[in-house]
């Protein structure tokens, strides 16, 4: 047989070009193609164009006009509204994120107690608001936080004079943060899953070593939950920087212009929206977008660096 094969080489068994490996790779590319096309056409391409546009004066109708660093210079040197928007946004991020994380962790710990009755009902009640994110829910909260609304009525029962919330520039951001606390169901569920993953033996071992409740919390719960905390802090900060719908609808319902009252709800993305879609200053708005992007990336990078010091990975 071997001799025959050697004498007639053109008849030897040749591996087919389309091997299983190649076939699998071809299907792999093919099936991933929707994402690859989407990424190139709707994310990477637009990002490159946006970076270019940020150095131009561009109103969509006429061609972009190269202006170099003008947009960035104007933003940093002369744009007072930019500064207000940045200040408002930082206030929101810095106050809202720790509150939301702490409160959702607290709820998750309570819900994770052994033999707690009505566990599922509580979980449902606390999670339900998280799925109601549109305009309707914002209306509800503008109404709840009305000077004569539900919350102030409740506060007056406790003899606390309620503020005017969305009608008072000093209280509008706190009002928005109160509203954001209605949406802690998602981090709560993620914390619950994290808590479920902590082996019970670790608590028992800590108890035998004489650890009390507080000690167990800091020495067992927090370290083992640190990857979850890290994930939630990173994603919540990125989300909070881009607050838009709630503030935009609140301003238009309680006040008359985006950012009302008195520019106290003028957040970064609302300002960017105004520049882009109301003034059609696309180049300027792209520069604004890249500045926020840079800020978010620096903060995320810093957190990644910090994570090495405090986030505990089992492997």
């Amino acid at each position, binding site marked *: 047989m071997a001799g025959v094969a050697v004498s007639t080489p053109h008849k030897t068994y040749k591996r087919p070009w389309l091997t299983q490996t190649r076939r*699998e*790779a*071809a*299907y*792999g*590319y093919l*099936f*991933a193609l929707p*994402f690859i*096309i*989407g*990424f190139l*056409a709707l*994310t990477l*391409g*637009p*990002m490159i164009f*946006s970076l270019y*546009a940020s150095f131009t004066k561009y109103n969509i109708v006429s061609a972009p006009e190269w202006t170099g660093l003008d947009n960035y210079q104007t933003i940093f040197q002369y744009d007072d509204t930019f500064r207000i928007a940045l200040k408002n946004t930082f206030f929101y991020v810095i106050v809202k994120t720790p509150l939301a994380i702490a409160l959702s962790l607290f709820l998750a710990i309570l819900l994770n*107690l052994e033999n*707690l009755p009505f566990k599922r009902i*509580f979980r449902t009640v606390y*999670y*339900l608001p998280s*799925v*109601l994110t*549109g*305009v*309707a829910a914002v209306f*509800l*909260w503008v*109404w*709840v936080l*009305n000077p*004569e609304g*539900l919350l102030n*009525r409740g506060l007056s029962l406790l003899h606390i004079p309620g503020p005017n919330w969305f009608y008072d520039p000093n209280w509008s951001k706190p009002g928005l943060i109160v509203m954001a606390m*209605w949406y802690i169901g*998602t981090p709560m*569920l*993620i914390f619950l*899953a*994290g808590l479920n993953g902590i082996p019970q033996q670790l608590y028992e071992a800590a*108890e035998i070593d004489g650890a009390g409740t507080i000690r167990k919390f800091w020495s067992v719960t927090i370290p083992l939950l640190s*990857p*979850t905390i890290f994930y*939630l802090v990173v994603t919540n900060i990125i989300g909070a920087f881009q607050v*838009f*719908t709630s503030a935009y*609808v609140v301003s238009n*319902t309680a006040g008359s212009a985006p950012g009302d009252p008195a520019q106290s709800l003028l957040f970064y*993305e609302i300002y*960017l929206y105004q520049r*882009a*879609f109301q003034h059609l200053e*696309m180049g300027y708005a*792209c520069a604004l*977008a890249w500045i*926020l992007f840079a800020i978010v990336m620096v903060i*995320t990078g810093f957190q990644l660096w910090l994570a090495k010091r405090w986030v505990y990975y089992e492997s």
Partner: protein
Amino acid sequence: MSTIATQPARALTGSSWQHSKRRRALIARIVALIILLLGGILFFMPFLYMLSTSLKLQKDVFNPNWIPHPIAWNNYKDALTSAPFGTYFKNTAIITFFAVAGNVLSASLVAYSFARLRWPGRDFWFGVVLATMILPGIVTMIPRYILFSKIGWVNTFLPLTVPAWLGGSTLYIFLLRQFYRGIPMDLSEAARIDGAGELRIWWQIIMPLARPALAAVTIFAFNGAWDDYMDPLIYLHDESLYTLQLGLTTFKAGGGGVPEWHWMMAASLVVLLPVVIIFFAGQKYFIEGVTLTGIKG
């Protein structure tokens, strides 16, 4: 060895130790129950307030009574006929349907490729998926608008539906990939030996097994499309194309500057209702889905 050594010591104090531990657990449970009950009431009251206001006459909305008197059922009819809510509902339903179908099908196909097929460059592209997950949408918002306006898609439903067919949200790809990786590879191998193609393995073996994860993605995508405000605000300018979310904002313009709270609450309640129904119908999957997204730190 050490367990044997500590055994006598624990046996001595074991019962009282166990007893006080059980008592402390009971107290913790009662305190937790009280806090959760109070918090739960706080979380739920806004819904009752909404329902109550939606059934009041306009002159009674600031009246602190919970039970409206008289009960103004007409508010619902009046609120929903004050603007073409039938059209808004139809538009929202069309957009939601195509966005959900696109998200589920394309994210599933892409996730299948990342989870169950080997190809050069796969890890690189999966890294791109992860990076896109935390990419702030703000950097692509304006150039995407420019792109869609250049190809004449502004004032159509296309910018709200077509992106869903191109992999959809990277969060869904990630979630489904996690789930698909958990399905034994032997199933695919056996099917390949039987001569099944990849498309058939995906559709006939993986998709049915991944029903809980697909249900979660379906619900997420439904809520995402139904509740979306920003994209419709940017892309839909004709009132005949408005979605429910945009339609709701027409209320603030009416009533001579004073918001018509009774109508706003009635219309809002109707808009929230489908999401609430889907939430209760799919709660199990929902909670699994959220859990799955948070597993990896």
